[in-house]
């Protein structure tokens, strides 16, 4: 295994070196004019210059601030409202059409409204991010809550698990993979919207630096490209961090377990239902309600973090491109759609 991986890493480094070399070579040979597209060394120097001062880190911090605040608000609202809607069939059928419509609106269309309301401020940035994150995620949460395996639902009813306990032990674990898919998309969308809000709306951050550098003319182009590279790195880091977190939180789920058995025939996450381990207390001597001693638990051994990061290599790519809309159908209204949920 190690041999194959070092081999692949070598190959990748070679590709990177070749691409950077080609860039530098084309600039040096004059194929690319330096006043249009700066050379690799110029860009790298600009990146280094920005990184050694406080300029880069300030911009990154401002971007992350808008990203985190917006994500937090959007996710919290979507979780709360999505759960409430998902648990009530009537509410779900009533509002799902409206939500679908709002989801189809390109966020960019809301930007002018944000600008008019708040101007180029942090509020504008995180309000837009929260808006963009909310609609797709709330749908995911609804689907997740509604996707509860009938057997698990019946089991909970029979065992008289209800209220907060039902939510925490049955509904949330069952909806978790859906929520995770929604979150994965939300993390990426939030960054894009945040940067658009800076680039066009003028809120401070990485996007705004790109715009300023562009307007400053050809001498500042290396700085512009440096910030473009920073935006990409930021995207990779945030998506990577989320994948690690997801792997850690959902290690027990099929999609994560099958992603590890990597091979030619990699299995896609199949939702044959969660592995509900129902443990009945031995003997059942205590009088009381039926099933008051039942413990519903979903248990899998937790791998150490190091192992998780090591396994990140291959599955990162597919995991990030699963489309939530095709992978998931609205559940419950059509009989029979429940079984083949996550099979793309």
């Amino acid at each position, binding site marked *: 295994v190690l041999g194959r991986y070092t081999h692949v890493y070598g190959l990748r480094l070679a*590709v990177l070196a070749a691409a950077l070399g080609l860039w530098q070579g084309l600039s040096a040979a004059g194929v690319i004019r330096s006043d*249009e597209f700066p050379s690799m060394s110029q860009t790298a120097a600009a990146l280094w210059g920005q990184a050694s001062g406080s300029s880069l880190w300030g911009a990154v911090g401002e971007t992350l601030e808008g990203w985190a605040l917006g994500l937090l608000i959007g996710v919290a609202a979507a979780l709360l409202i999505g759960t409430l809607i998902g648990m009530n069939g009537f509410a779900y059928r009533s509002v799902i059409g409206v939500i679908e419509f709002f989801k189809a*609106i*390109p966020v960019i*269309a809301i930007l002018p409204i944000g600008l008019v309301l708040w101007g180029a401020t942090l509020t504008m940035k995180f309000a837009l991010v929260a808006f963009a994150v909310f609609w797709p995620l709330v749908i995911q949460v609804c689907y997740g809550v509604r996707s509860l395996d009938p057997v698990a639902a019946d089991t909970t009813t029979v065992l008289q698990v209800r209220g907060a306990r039902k939510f925490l032990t049955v509904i949330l674990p069952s909806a978790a993979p859906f929520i995770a898919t929604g979150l994965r998309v939300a993390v990426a969308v939030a960054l*894009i919207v945040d940067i658009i809000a800076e680039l066009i709306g003028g809120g401070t951050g990485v996007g705004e630096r790109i715009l300023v550098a562009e307007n400053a003319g050809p001498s500042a182009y290396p700085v512009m490209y440096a910030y473009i590279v920073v935006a990409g790195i930021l995207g990779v880091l945030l998506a990577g961090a989320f994948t690690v977190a997801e792997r850690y939180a959902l290690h027990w789920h099929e999609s994560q377990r099958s992603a590890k058995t990597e091979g030619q025939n990699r299995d896609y996450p199949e939702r044959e239902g969660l592995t509900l381990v129902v443990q009945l207390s031995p003997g059942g001597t205590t009088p009381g309600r039926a099933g008051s001693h039942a413990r519903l638990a979903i248990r899998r051994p937790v791998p150490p973090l190091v192992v998780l990061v090591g396994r990140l290599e291959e599955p990162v790519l597919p995991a990030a491109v699963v489309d939530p*809309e095709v992978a998931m159908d609205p559940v419950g209204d059509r009989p029979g*759609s429940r079984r*083949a949920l996550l099979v793309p």
Partner: protein
Amino acid sequence: VTGPARAELSSSLEHLLAGYAIASVVGIGIGALLWSLRYLRDATSPYLYFLYVLPAPVLVPAALTLFGIGFTMKVVLIAFAALWPTLLNTLDGMRGVDQVKLDTSRVLGVSPLGSVFRVVLPAAAPQIVAGLRNSLQVAIILMVVSEWEASTDGIGYYIVNAQQSFDYVGMWSGIIVLAIIGTVANLLFVIAENRVLHWHYGARAAEGTR
């Protein structure tokens, strides 16, 4: 909607269609190529991923300096941004093809190219379509962003122009038109998807009622 607004709309849609068409064809093509060349895939996958997560709007200023204001800049931008979801989903869908099916087609004497069209493409189709749908959304966003930043026509230009001249009625109508474009495009896509993939959903439904 009066005459000028309609002209803005048609030029926007022109950019969108051209960019999206290029992205779809190139995305599926390169995806298939990378699927067949394993070494190339292994070597380039982190960089493809980097380009996929790179927020595409940051490329607008760069494209502006390279291509200037105009048709080329917008189409290139839209095509570039919309390329990655399709490409990566194609690649991933093809990697998920059942090896048994490939072996079967080889045993039955189907040529390698023939098996790509008869076995791999249909098997990967649902995921390719998922990628195409993602690409469409990205393409719409880029259409607006590119017109917004630097343009003399298009619906994005219309909105930003109205906003800057405090014509809020114009701004809102532009926004509503944009929302309608997004909804209609999505609807058309779903209809097309149901037609093209109806065998797939049929099979899935049949499997579900077992």
